């Protein structure tokens, strides 16, 4: 399984908010264990969906401060089961967005019902830490299609 937990970005305001989707397929191997006969998307993956969505929102600013990485999870609540095949709609609102850190209020809905929420804290890791050829295809395709531009990474 690739660790890409966002299929598509529906709405994006760089550095401010994002709405994205993810559908976990029933044939993913993890559902053999989580749980036998009762497959549901693990809460840690729902949390990662929120983190990846908020991270893309921050990264879309193309700031030289670096790439957003999850540092802390607060107030995580899981209200409903999410079976494979259901589309999770992930929303992240960036609360504070500073040079050193950012915070986001996030939630996931399935069929317009809230299934989980969390407050996430991000730090920034320099772009040089990552493979030079790395491209976030989900984010870049949204930016291309919607003609949203930012400054290049590393630009002052």
């Amino acid at each position: 399984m690739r660790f890409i937990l966002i299929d598509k970005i529906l709405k994006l305001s760089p550095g401010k908010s994002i709405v994205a989707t993810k559908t976990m397929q029933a044939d993913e191997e993890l559902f053999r264990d989580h749980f036998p006969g009762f497959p549901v998307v693990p809460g840690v993956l729902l949390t990662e969906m929120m983190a990846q969505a908020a991270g893309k929102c921050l990264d879309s600013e193309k700031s030289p401060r670096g790439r957003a990485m999850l540092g802390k999870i607060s107030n995580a609540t899981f209200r409903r089961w999410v079976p494979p095949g259901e589309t999770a709609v992930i929303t992240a609102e960036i609360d504070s967005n500073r040079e050193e850190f950012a915070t986001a209020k996030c939630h996931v809905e399935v069929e317009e019902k809230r299934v989980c929420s969390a407050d996430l804290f991000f730090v920034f890791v320099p772009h040089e830490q990552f493979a030079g050829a790395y491209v976030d295809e989900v984010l870049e395709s949204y930016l291309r299609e919607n003609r949203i531009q930012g400054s290049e990474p590393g630009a002052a």
Partner: protein
Amino acid sequence: MKQEEALLWIAEIFEEPKENVRPETLREAIPGFDSMGVLALMAALDKDFDIVLTEEDIRTIIKVGDILRILERNGKLEAGAA
């Protein structure tokens, strides 16, 4: 805010039992007061009190009392409680 309330607020940021957080407690004595803890403190000051910490402020924090003084200086702590 009174001193005891401020100490509880600080203890929650660093995820430390409140009895371990006193004005004289040194930064090194609080495991959660690491680089991530500093960022969590900055975020909490910003969110809860609209206080934006400068690099100079961070350098001056040697013990918990220094955080109290930052709160006092910004009018968030009763005068003389730091």
